[in-house]
Each structure stands twice: as structure tokens, then as C-alpha cells.
């Protein structure tokens, strides 16, 4: 494996075939292969082009509002009585989540390729909103594919996308959630590949997507690393982020991978509990397979059919995971753990009441684990949690669980 042959193993993936160890790759129909080749060539050229990087940095500073703060959750940390917990405030980005870091980058690629139309899949709706937002700004036609079930539970984000001029296409096939939205986006792309750019929202899909989405999200970890050094004088002892497809987690983790003293925890959605089978935790309870253009850990049955998933959080409700996470699990660099629906909901309420910050249900999974971890650590230690998004979009879900009907 690559890691044994390089002194900087984490910088050496993916390889030229888009492989992270045995994971990743480009498992798509022939019709899309040359579009992916073209995208990879363009991306590798622009990634090395200082003018492109300046253009991206300008957008991140003045449109997204970066850098996002690294905030010490003092009252919450005091209450837990263990390690100090620092929140990387991706919820303060324009559109309210980390997703926009990536859509800004991919939209610039679309612009450079002269595409007039962008498409996206979305689960919680955050990536859909971020895509619709950047499409509005650049004057691009935008179609967002969203499972019918998610359209129902994320009505606020659906309306936001419509206000931004996007067409939201409800997907009624399969389980009617994120995986089916991704199938449908792929079907659209294969049909309209000449004029359409597919803005994938996570570090999954065929090469080069897992690589380029990671690269765009790494701004989170680069900032958090510098901010930790500035605010605490050293690197954090642990990083915690939720993992659905895994883009916010890779963005935080990647710039720290060579820092051996920094422990990392990727938190998967345990749903009703891993033992019940109703969860979305492929790294914890799945096996390797091929879906959506890459080889990775999947939730699948004994015949290789993809299983339905469950999570209270639409953004984590996905049976696969980015291939780099699959590799980081196998090489043992990152610990992958689970947090159940009810634990995440408790963390949602705890942070809201002690810090006046309402986290997304996705991020609440990371917070719940960070709380458990902090309690086992000492006050001299520091944990950085990626607060990947804000919770306004989840108010209906939380209210209905609490028995409140608007």
C-alpha cells in the first residue's frame, strides 16, 4: 500500500487512478469517462495555478466569510468538566454550513469549463442550498436532486433553493433519500454531459471528485490548525467531526494527518443503534463494495444490494462513505465511532442551552461524541469539533420529536 513507500503517506493519495489504497477509483459507465478525464486535467492545472487560487481565496474571504472562528465553548466545557472543547464555526459561513467551501470551488471549475448548467444531489439540503446560491451568483441554471423523503423533512431548505432560482427535483425511486438523489443526478449528468457540470457535495463519487472536494474543504483544517496554535499555543489533542459522505471531516482532519499527537474521531450516524440495523454507519458496520463511482465501505446485504439507512439527520442518511475515510479506517489513522439519534438530539439541546449556538443535527453527532470524549480527558487538553452547520433547518424535525406541531 502507498503508505509504506512514502514518508508523507497521507499526501500521496489518491494515486493516478484515484485510489486511496484499494478504495476510490472511477466506477462509472463509459459515457462519463471522458468528462471525468477532462475534469481531472482541468482541476490539476488550476490547482497549480496561483491566479485560480487567488480567485478562490477571494470568494472564500468575501463571499463565504472566511476564516470561520475557532470558538471555545467555555460554559459547555465547564459543565462537562473535562477537556476544553473548541468549535470550528462552519455554521457561520454564508448559507450556514461547510458545504459552500466546496461549491464555490467547483462552481469556479464549471465557469472555467464554460458550462451553463450545474446539478447537485442533496440530503439535508445544505449542499443543494450552497449550490443554488453559487449558481444564482454566477447566473447558472441549477437543478438539485433530492429524495422525496428529504424534501418532506427539509421543507425550509427546499424553499430556500426555490427562492434562489433552482429547480428542486424530488426523487421517488429506491429509498427516496440521498443515495437515490445521487443516482438521479448521475442519470441527469450522463444525459446532459455536454453542457452540465455535476457539483458533487461530498468526498465520494468517481475520481477526481473525492480528491477535489477534499482539497476545497481542507481550508477548514488549515485554519483550525493555525487558530489552535495561535489560541492555545499548540495543536489540539483530538479532532471530532461527523461523517456521512465525510467532507467536513476530511476537511478538518486532512491538514492534521501528519501530526501524530492529534487523535481523530469520525462520528457516524448510529440511528436507532448499530445493533438494530437501523443506522447509517458503513465504516462501523459495513463492508467494502462499489457504489456511486467508487469502492468504499457500504451498508449492503449478503447479495451486494445496498441497504436502506436510518438517521434522524438527513445529511448523514447515506449507505456509503468517502473512499479516503475507508482508507484512513484501514490504516488506523482515524477512529470511526457512532452516536445514536437520541444522543445527538441531547447534544443539540445541550449546546443550544449552554452556548446559544444551535447546531445542525449532523454536527450534533460530532458534539455528542466530543462531550463523551471530553469527560474522559483533562482540562489541560483541547478538542476541536467541527460545527459543520447550523441547526435552523432542523427545527421542524426537533419540534416534531418533542411533540410540537407548528
Amino acid at each position, binding site marked *: 500500500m502507498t503508505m509504506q513507500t512514502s514518508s508523507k503517506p497521507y499526501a500521496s493519495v489518491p494515486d493516478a487512478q484515484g485510489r486511496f489504497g484499494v478504495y476510490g477509483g472511477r466506477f462509472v459507465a463509459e459515457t462519463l469517462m471522458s468528462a471525468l478525464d477532462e475534469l481531472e486535467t482541468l482541476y490539476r492545472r488550476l490547482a497549480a495555478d496561483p491566479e485560480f487560487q487567488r480567485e478562490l481565496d477571494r470568494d472564500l474571504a468575501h463571499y463565504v466569510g472566511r476564516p470561520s472562528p475557532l470558538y471555545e465553548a467555555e460554559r459547555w466545557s465547564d459543565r462537562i468538566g473535562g477537556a476544553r472543547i473548541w468549535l470550528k464555526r462552519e455554521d457561520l459561513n454564508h448559507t450556514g454550513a461547510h458545504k459552500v467551501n466546496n461549491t464555490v470551488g467547483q462552481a469556479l471549475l464549471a465557469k472555467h469549463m464554460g458550462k451553463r448548467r450545474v446539478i447537485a444531489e442533496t440530503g439535508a439540503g445544505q449542499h443543494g442550498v450552497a449550490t443554488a446560491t453559487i449558481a444564482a451568483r454566477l447566473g447558472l441554471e441549477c437543478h438539485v436532486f433530492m429524495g422525496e423523503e428529504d424534501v418532506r423533512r427539509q421543507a425550509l431548505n427546499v424553499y430556500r433553493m426555490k427562492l434562489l432560482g433552482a429547480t428542486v427535483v424530488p426523487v421517488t425511486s429506491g429509498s427516496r433519500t440521498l443515495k437515490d438523489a445521487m443516482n438521479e443526478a448521475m442519470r441527469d449528468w*450522463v444525459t446532459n454531459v455536454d453542457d452540465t457540470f455535476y457539483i458533487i457535495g461530498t468526498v465520494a463519487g468517481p475520481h477526481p471528485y473525492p480528491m477535489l472536494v477534499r482539497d476545497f474543504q481542507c481550508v477548514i483544517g488549515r485554519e483550525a490548525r493555525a487558530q489552535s496554535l495561535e489560541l492555545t499555543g499548540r495543536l489540539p489533542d483530538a479532532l471530532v467531526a461527523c461523517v456521512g459522505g465525510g467532507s467536513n471531516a476530511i476537511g478538518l482532519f486532512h491538514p492534521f494527518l501528519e501530526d501524530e499527537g492529534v487523535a481523530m474521531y469520525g462520528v457516524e450516524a448510529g440511528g436507532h443503534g448499530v445493533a438494530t440495523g437501523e443506522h447509517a454507519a458503513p465504516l462501523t458496520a459495513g463492508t467494502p463494495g462499489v457504489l456511486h463511482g467508487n469502492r468504499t465501505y457500504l451498508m449492503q446485504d449478503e447479495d451486494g444490494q445496498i441497504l436502506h439507512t436510518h438517521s434522524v439527520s438527513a445529511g448523514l442518511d447515506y449507505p456509503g462513505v468517502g473512499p479516503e475515510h475507508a482508507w484512513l479506517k484501514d490504516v488506523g489513522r482515524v477512529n470511526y465511532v457512532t452516536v445514536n439519534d437520541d444522543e445527538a438530539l441531547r447534544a443539540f439541546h445541550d449546546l443550544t442551552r449552554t452556548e446559544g449556538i444551535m447546531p445542525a443535527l449532523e454536527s450534533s453527532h460530532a458534539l455528542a461524541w466530543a462531550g463523551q470524549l471530553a469527560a474522559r480527558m483533562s482540562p489541560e487538553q483541547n478538542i476541536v469539533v467541527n460545527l459543520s452547520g447550523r441547526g435552523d433547518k432542523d427545527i421542524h424535525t426537533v419540534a416534531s420529536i418533542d411533540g410540537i406541531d407548528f
Partner: protein
Amino acid sequence: MSRIAGRFAQLATEGRRALIPYIVAGDPSRTATVPLMHALVSAGADIIELGVPFSDPMSEGPVIQQAHERALAHHTRLRDVLAMVAEFRQQDNDTPVLLMGYANPVEHMGYAAFADAAAEAGVDAALTVDLPPEEVADLNRELRRVAMDNIFLVAPTTPEARIRAIVEQASGFIYYVALKGVTGAGHLDVDDVAEHLAHIRAHTELPLAVGFGIKDADSAARIGQLANGVVVGSALVTHLAAAVADVDAEGQEAALLDAASGLMGSIRRGLDSIAS
């Protein structure tokens, strides 16, 4: 000579084109598939393309997606599909059978185990939609070990250099996807197909079959002028689904076989009208 190569060679001596119907194994029921395969052969099919149901058929349009969902609703597994082919072989040892599906069920079974089981069942070839040339080498090696063909797709978007790389690894025939899109979509542009087939022919002597967009005798005849074979998928699946929609359980098989014979017979006549 493999069954597929033999069948194309025989058709070539007769000046005829291969008619390749596609059905999803287990749709509309697990017991219907083998009789349906025989009915398709009786009505003029030269090669049977059998879809292996998958939960996430990314390259399929709504018609074939729904066929996959119906087949999965009664748990048609890859090993069940292989059992269907074995049963088909008890009465038909001549008609080539091609399995078309997605990588994950095959990966889950294991490439070597799949190749052994498929060869044992009497399968002649596999077409795995999401295993492009860059990803298919390991499976292709196993298929060759058991003398099966891996069928490669060439698309309208495939540049010259890729065509050359694909035909080098290919055997059996080349499957040209006539449209950018999913199965069952769009309008066929015959001139465009002609141009692309000419490019492929410049690099290979393998037979060329065309799929996507062929729905009746007329479109089959127009494509048959250009290619060595035509694949009929969504049109057939639509026709079969409609035929059994309002029929009670007892009458289903008869209605299904009737409908299959009707459409296949008509397309067969369309194709043979251009035989030379």
C-alpha cells in the same frame, strides 16, 4: 469458438443481424424468466441479454429501474439469476446468454467465484455497466480463465484513443451506446450512429451491436443497416409490463409470452427486411 462468436459468424454467413432482447431477471416474477427467455428465442432472438437486478441501477431510465425494483421485491439475487440460466440451458444449449448488471453484486460474490458459477451455469458473457476499462481488468482476467467474454461499452463521448484501448481488451462483440443518457431515453440519430460505428470499425473486426433508442421494427431496421446487431431493452420491458398490468396471476405467463413473441417477431421481420 465461443457461443457469441459462433452466433455472429453464423449470422454473417446468412447476411442477417443479431437481435438481442434485454429483460430483467425476476421481472415480473422469478418463475417467468426462463419461459420468457425461450419465448424470445422462438420469436427470433439471437442472444439473450439478462439484466441482474441491483438496488441502485445508475444508468437505467425509469422503465428499467422499475423492473429492477420489481425483481428485487421478490428477492431475485445474483445466484438466482445464475440458476435461471442453468435452467434455460437444459433446453437451449445454443443461444448465447449475456448478463448485464452492476459491479457490486459481482464484487460481493467475488470475481473468481462469479466467473466459475457463471460459466458453470452456461453464461457466455458479462457486461458490467460501472466497470469501465480502467476498472475491469481483474474481472476480465477471471472471465477469460473460464472462456467468457467481457462485453465493453463504447459511447458517443468515447474519444479515439479510448476506443483503441477498449477494442484491445474486448472479445465477443462491442456494445455501442447510441445515446448520451440512460436507457429508454431520447431520440435516435441514425447519421450520428453511422459516424461513430465507422470510427469503431476502423479499429476492430469484432461485431458491433447498438443499444439505447431501438424500440420497434423500423428503428431496428435503420440501425441494422449499420451494425451487426441491435439490442432492444426499454421498449421490450415497457411492452411486457403493460401486457401483464391488468392480468390476474393465472393469465400472467401466457400474456407475457404472447407480448414477447409479438414485439420480437415484429422486430425480427424488420431486421430481416434488410438482410442481404
